[in-house]
């Protein structure tokens, strides 16, 4: 049943368009399986990494005799080991993510599709994917694994939790950093409607734990462009008050606020070596993922 419920987020059309892509870690990650991602554990695999001087106890199989002949010194050949990586997808399910304008999906729905697609993609390339759902706290956590059963659990979890409560991203990311364990790729999907100071603190915690962090800032079309054209009473989510205004007169100032917020968020991310990618929930998910993942792969 859980499988059936969660599979709606695996949109075949989306998956078909992104199947040739790879989710790669920008930094080195720890893993068990050789593959796409650089391992910090240098060993003796197929890809030469560097020489180092021999120290007693080293396996003599890796002694570079040619170097010894030339320099009369003992050098050990080190090879870089490719390994699988752990990816933890943190999805914001706070009340603000419920917002949707027009006929396209809500930010949360969009986030769910995004999380499911990425998890599928990661598992498809034999990496481990886990899920963290949060609002004002981290309330559901699935450890990364590369098994199909975990993917099914993740899908079921995405489906089961309705949006509610406020966002407290600082504490949540701190919690994620602690519970992720080994160094992982942490993918945050959120509208980030919280204090940017909290975001900064959370990102610093992740960065301190050597996690590679990617932030998808999911925003609705109206939140980005604010094209309302008549008198409107805006009822605030997450406990904000309501406001009756002519949106046309406020548009300029609003867009300025959004631009400032985006710039500040981007700045915090850059400082913490975090990829920041703002997504309009109106845009097709496949195109968003295609463009982002292709760019990330190219930058590797």
């Amino acid at each position, binding site marked *: 049943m859980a499988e059936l419920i969660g599979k709606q987020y695996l949109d075949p059309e989306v998956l078909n368009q992104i199947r040739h892509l790879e989710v790669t870690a920008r930094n080195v990650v720890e893993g068990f399986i050789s593959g796409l991602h650089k391992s910090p554990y240098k060993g003796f695999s197929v890809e030469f990494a560097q020489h180092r001087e021999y120290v007693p106890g080293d396996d003599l199989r890796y002694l570079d005799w040619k170097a010894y002949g030339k320099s009369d010194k003992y050098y050990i050949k080190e090879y870089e080991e490719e390994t699988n990586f752990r990816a933890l997808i943190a999805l914001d399910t706070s*009340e*603000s*993510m*419920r*917002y949707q304008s027009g006929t396209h999906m809500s*930010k949360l729905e969009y986030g769910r599709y995004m999380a499911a697609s990425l998890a599928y993609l990661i598992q498809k390339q034999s990496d481990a994917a886990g899920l963290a759902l949060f609002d004002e706290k981290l309330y559901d956590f699935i450890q990364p694994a590369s098994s199909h059963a975990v993917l099914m659990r993740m899908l079921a979890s995405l489906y089961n939790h309705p949006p509610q409560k406020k966002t407290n991203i600082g504490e949540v990311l701190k919690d994620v950093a602690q519970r992720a364990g080994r160094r992982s790729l942490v993918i945050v999907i959120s*509208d980030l*409607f919280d204090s940017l100071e909290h975001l900064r603190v959370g990102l610093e915690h992740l960065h301190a734990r050597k996690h590679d962090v990617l932030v998808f800032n999911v*925003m*609705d079309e109206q*939140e980005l*462009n*604010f*094209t*309302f*054209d*008549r*008198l*409107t*009473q*805006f*009822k*605030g*989510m*997450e406990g*904000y*008050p309501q*406001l*009756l*205004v*002519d949106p*046309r*007169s*406020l*548009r300029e*100032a*609003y867009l*300025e*606020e*959004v631009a400032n*917020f985006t710039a500040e968020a981007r700045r915090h991310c850059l400082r913490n070596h975090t990829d920041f990618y703002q997504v309009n929930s109106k845009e097709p998910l496949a195109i968003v993922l295609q463009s982002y993942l292709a760019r990330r792969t190219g930058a590797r």
Partner: protein
Amino acid sequence: MQPWMWGLALGVPALAALVPIIIHIINLTRYRKIDWAAMEFLLAAYRRTRRRLQMEHIIMLLLRVMAVVLLALAFFPMGCEQVRDWASKTLGLGGSTFTGNAPLHVVLVFDNSASMAYTQEGQTSFDRAKKYALSVIDGLRPNRDRVSIIRLSDVFVPRGLGGVVATAEDAEKSRKRRVGQLANLDIETARRELAATTVASVDTNMVIALREAQRSIEVTPENDAPGFVLVSDFASAGWREMMKDGPSNGDFVELMKKMADRMAGAGTRPVLYDAGFDDASNVAITNITCNDRIVGDGMQSSLFVDVTNFARPGSGENIRNVNLSCRIDQGPERRFGQPLNLNAGQSSTKNEVVLKASELQLKPHEKKTGASRHIEISIIEPDGLKTDNSRSFVLHIVPDVPILMVNGVPSTDPRKDETLYLDMALSISDNKIEGEARDPNKTLTRVTPNRVDTINPNQLTAKDNFLDYRLVILANVSQIPESAVGKLEEFVRAGYSLVIFDGDRVDHQRYNVDLYKAGKGLMPVKLGAPEGSNDVGAKLYTLTPREDKHPILSIFMGRPEDKAALTDPEVIRNWRGVELPVGSEIDPLNPVRVILGVNNGPEARPFMMEHNFGRGRVIYVASTASERWNEMWTGPLPIYLYHEVVNYLTNSEARYSNLGVGETYRRVLRARDVAPSYAVKDPLGTSQELPATADEGLSILEFAGTASAGVYTLQAVERGETGTQNVKWQERFSVSIEPRESDIVKIKGEEGQGAKEAVQGALGENIQIVFQKAGGDAETGGSLNSDRKRGLWLWLAVAGAIFLLAESLWSAVISKPEQ
């Protein structure tokens, strides 16, 4: 406007102003609700822009209110009438019960004086005035409202005999008659009358018109609402005297206050409409004079032309090279004099044009009757007011001036004959002393073509009448037969003149009874005993002027040597003591004027006296015409003096040949002038029959229809042997507009502002008027409809529509979110 209309006028825009506010309030309750996630940004933006937004909202609301109010104002005048109609029909509110629907009685004072013909840019002040006045009438409601039109400048044509305008008082009376009133006209008639009104050639009579208007408003029934609209060009000609410190200011203020007070009760205010042009200037021929009162056949003469540049002094409207031309009897035009340079407000007087003897000579068929010559003086360069660019003058050329002299003491001894010297002196004609007469250095020598007939006193009774003569002279006649007295009185009343010389033969008591008649007779004074000395060697006395400005003395009052010719000779030995009229003897309309006195003491004794009798004049000389009581004939003084007396008394042709507009032309018919019928032809060529009338036994032709400036021709028509109509004789007379009408410079306030400030300044702050101006930007609304007002409403409507459009554009385009 009625009080209820004021209520509507203010209430409708006020209600209209509420509409946007109500819509705004309704809109505040009609909004959509949405859940919004990015509230933090929205709140931040709102906090940052709240004040500016509130201000914008207020401004937008005010703009909307203003736009709607303007539209309401724009369409209100049209809607108001509908509302009133609806109230009247649907609610059954008739005029009697609904005070707001009271009949309106508009008194329209309309300036159609000569200055209104001023043209600028193809439009006259009169065109603008008429257009406005018609729009006022069109704005009234037929079958209810009515109009009284008071035209400032109508020429009153009296029925029957009119008076001859000779004195300033008569002129004033005549002017008063020029205000025409058409009272209580219905709308259609008023429109027709106004449309038919043309520019008159007479001056502005504002005070008289205002008095009539005030009377009309005063008699407006209490239940009716009076309206007062005055349309004028506010030219100095008609308005200067009513401005502050002007002689008629008191009347102006009093009349306007009375009208304003009466109108205030009905909620209306006086409306003054300025149809004139602010920067008007005008060069005009203001006067033509001729020193020769009588011009004889073959004499030359001169006319003197005054030209004025009517422009505000200092305005820079200086006119260069003004050329004058002269034309006689529609003949070829010839220029005369040097081109004139006239600064603003400057006049050039006495520009002489010499009329040669050949130009004035009588033609063979005119030798018997004399003829009149029409001299037209024109400014060659035309300007905005054409009516005063040319002026006509009519000169009568006479074959002679017939004078009857009654010699009281005939004698073969020239020194003892009573009239011999006088006869010789008066018989000197231009033909005889032409060279001397025209010597410019001898200004005192002025001659007339007199023809003197002398008779004895006993022949007086044989005369049927004296109408073949222009002047009768009685010289030392002891007494006048009673029948002759009557004929002499008839003669003088008809407009001719009598000179009475005293002397030792005069029975002064009979004179007092027969001729003085206690102030009612021909003699101006009551005679007493002779004074002076009978001793031949006694002291002689000089003459002294008692009235310097009397026309008879005018030639002596120029140069000092001319005056000396009158006052220096010691020539008077005897004179008769006289008593001027006292008490009931005094005729206030015909006072006695003492022209000359005998300089025999501190108070000179009267020597030459004059008074009017009927339409003629009588001069009494307290000494003899001969040397019996004086030694005047030892020098040239009596030649000068008595020629001037004769000139003065026989110039009736000149006096009645050049009239102002509205003055009555009058001519006494002598026996030889009588014809079966008479006709007068006006300057436009329209001819009308003129019946002869009788006045105290005299046949008189009188014509009061001198409404247009120009030359009129009077013809005596008789039937020829073949039945054809022949002109027995004809005379012409000219009618000129009054020169003050040429002053079209607009009145200005004390500090140089426009006519509005000038009028308000003259009225004071207590009298509220509505002043509108043709072609002005600041035209204010009055109590009545007008084209100008409708124009204003239209502009208000356009302004309102532009506001709404701009607001819509602002909302729809400028603030439209970018996609």
